[in-house]
């Protein structure tokens, strides 16, 4: 059993996050705006078992399709806001929780590419010849642009409406919240950026070959009868090995409590024949729960439909049982490359190389023993 999360119908309502917290009694993780669009959770942590990611991109959905050729796109959603956002953290009550990112990297990424190639993050500017923010104003030239980024993070918090482009100098800093105005009003149609939001409700992947489970030295992590991966709270001693082993950066330690926590795919609900809380709460059926085979079929149909409609970016992630982790119990339909959503492009279960590792360790151990014997076999003092 598993999840299929179809991000193309996600509306970012966060019902899944809330339902998960409520049902599983997950502690609060503060209330904060991180400057990452509407994302106030930041990452999957011990206290957030579902995480809705918000990506602002200077491209219309279905960018590759004919109706959009010639549409003035490009430029950046807001390199300045991405820079600020990368450096923000909120108290999550967990460890390592939500470590800050790299601001220069974030700024580079938010510079749009026009060919829609997805991964390419070349620093060629948009239609206007340079990086522009969501309202089409060149951010670098603006008086309160990138240079002031980071300084007034607090001041910008909570301003959901972006001030008009012309008033940016005096107003609070724009952190990438959606504006009240349609794109292009401040700049005219030529200079407008046409951007899309990507939203994705992320979760533990319940890998078929789960690194966390393999490395746990206490046997606290186990595979359930539903094929999912669950931590036994009363066994975990907080060694943290699973945290470094997970190739998706999912599992996390709770501060004070010391144990590792993550999504259980609502083990208790499954046992009672119910649907996981997040899937139950999702109003758009972006999160679907069911037998994996059935979900994979449904997903393939959905991708074909989207491709037929010209959304050539649609792709599945984690659906392939032959990938580096043996396929995910929770897989996704994405509208861009995985790394755009903060997912690893080619995750591999860490224990895949383990036999080779033990072999190398054995050889090194033999070398050590031999060196000692030789050292003492010599005649001289």
């Amino acid at each position, binding site marked *: 059993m598993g999840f299929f999360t179809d991000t193309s119908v996600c509306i970012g309502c966060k019902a899944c996050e809330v339902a998960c917290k409520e049902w599983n009694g997950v502690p609060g993780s503060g209330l904060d705006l991180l400057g990452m669009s509407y994302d106030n959770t*930041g990452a999957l942590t011990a206290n957030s078992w579902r995480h809705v990611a918000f*990506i602002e991109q200077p491209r219309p959905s279905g960018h590759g399709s004919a109706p959009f050729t010639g549409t003035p796109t490009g430029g950046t959603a807001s390199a300045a806001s991405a820079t600020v*956002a*990368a450096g923000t953290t909120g108290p999550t009550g967990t460890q*390592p929780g939500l*470590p800050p*990112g*790299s*601001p220069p*990297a*974030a700024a580079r990424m938010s510079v749009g590419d026009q060919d829609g190639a997805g991964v*390419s*993050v070349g620093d060629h500017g948009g239609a206007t010849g340079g990086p522009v923010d969501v309202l089409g104003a060149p951010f670098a030239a603006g008086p309160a642009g990138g240079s002031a980024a980071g300084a007034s993070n607090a001041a910008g918090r909570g301003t959901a409406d972006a001030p008009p482009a012309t008033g940016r100098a005096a107003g609070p800093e724009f952190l990438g919240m959606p504006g009240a105005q349609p794109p292009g009003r401040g700049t005219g149609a030529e200079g407008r950026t046409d951007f899309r939001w990507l939203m994705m409700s992320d979760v533990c992947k319940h890998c078929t070959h789960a*690194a966390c489970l*393999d*490395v746990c*030295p*206490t*046997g606290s992590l186990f595979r359930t009868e539903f094929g999912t991966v669950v931590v036994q709270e009363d*066994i*975990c*001693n*907080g*060694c*943290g*090995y699973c*945290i*470094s*082993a*997970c190739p998706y*950066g999912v599992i996390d*330690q709770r501060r004070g409590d*010391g*144990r*590792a926590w993550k999504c259980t795919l609502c083990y208790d609900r499954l046992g009672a024949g119910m649907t996981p809380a997040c899937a139950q709460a999702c109003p758009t059926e972006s999160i679907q729960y069911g037998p994996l085979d059935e979900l994979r079929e449904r997903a393939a149909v959905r991708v074909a439909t989207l491709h037929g409609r010209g959304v050539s970016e649609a792709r599945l992630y984690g659906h392939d049982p032959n990938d580096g982790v043996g396929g995910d119990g929770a897989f996704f339909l994405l509208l861009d490359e995985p*790394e755009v959503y*903060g997912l*690893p492009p*080619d*995750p591999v279960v*860490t*224990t895949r*190389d*383990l036999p080779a*590792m033990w072999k*190398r*360790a*054995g050889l*090194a*151990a033999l*070398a*050590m*023993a031999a*060196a*000692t014997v*030789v*050292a*003492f076999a*010599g005649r001289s*003092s």
Partner: protein
Amino acid sequence: MRVPEAEFTSYYGRPILKPPVWKWDIAAYLFTGGLAAGSSLLAAGGQVTGRPALRRAGRVTALAAVSASAVFLIRDLGRPERFHHMLRVAKPTSPMSVGTWILTAFGPAAGVAAIAEGAGLLPRRGLLGLVGRALPPAGHAAGLVAAATAPALATYTGVLLADTAVPSWHEAYPELPVVFAGSALASGAGVGLLAAPPAEAGPARRMAVAGAALELYGAHRVETRLGLLSEPYRQGRPGRLLRAGRLLTAAGVTGAVLGRRSRAVGALSGAALLAASVVTRFGIFYGGVVSARDPRYTVVPQRERVNARRTRTDLPAD
């Protein structure tokens, strides 16, 4: 010349992996574990070849180091009082589980061997006298058991780090056990050089040379073989630590070879080798932490892998 910055995408530049929650005490554990292994090998050699100074120093150091190891290991648990849960299972897929069992075999043996060194302090008559006479052979046997498990104790830590998603640790899996084996030998030799008079220190000097060779070779490979993933080992704090380790190792081994007549030079070389082992472990440890913190080290190599696969599968179709 600097390589151009590798371009990559990540969600607001945030790390994809969770950086290790392990603190400095795990790096310290890597050192004390290696030191315990190296010095128990030194002790066994001294015991078999009749070099009492090497034997005594090695046994005492091994016990002290393995005790410190246990403290560091337990201290780093989120729930230290649940340490015994490690003994619930034996899992070859979990290097930490394997390591716990190695420690469980090594620790008591090292303990008995070290306690046996105290036999001479007991009175000759009575019950204690009996104990005093039984101790040396018991210590002998225990010393050999400890030495037999020592190479595993020193090298499993390489697998412990490599069997994670941390990019610069994982990719370095062929080298990490070599570095740690060399470092363990060198630190054991350091103990010998510090404790033994020059007349007895010959084997320690040879151990130092072998250990230094392995350590330097392994560290060099780690710093150069991994492409982008070698970068964390060359820059910043890990880079400084590993460079310092290299200098200290070189100094220590030179002193050990050239200063073979002088007690003082020998002791200084021994200290340098011990210090080298400490900084090398910390360098390797923090190099991995850096690679997990920066999404570049996760995304770029994986993206290259995906692209390579794509072009491979595309070609026949063309």
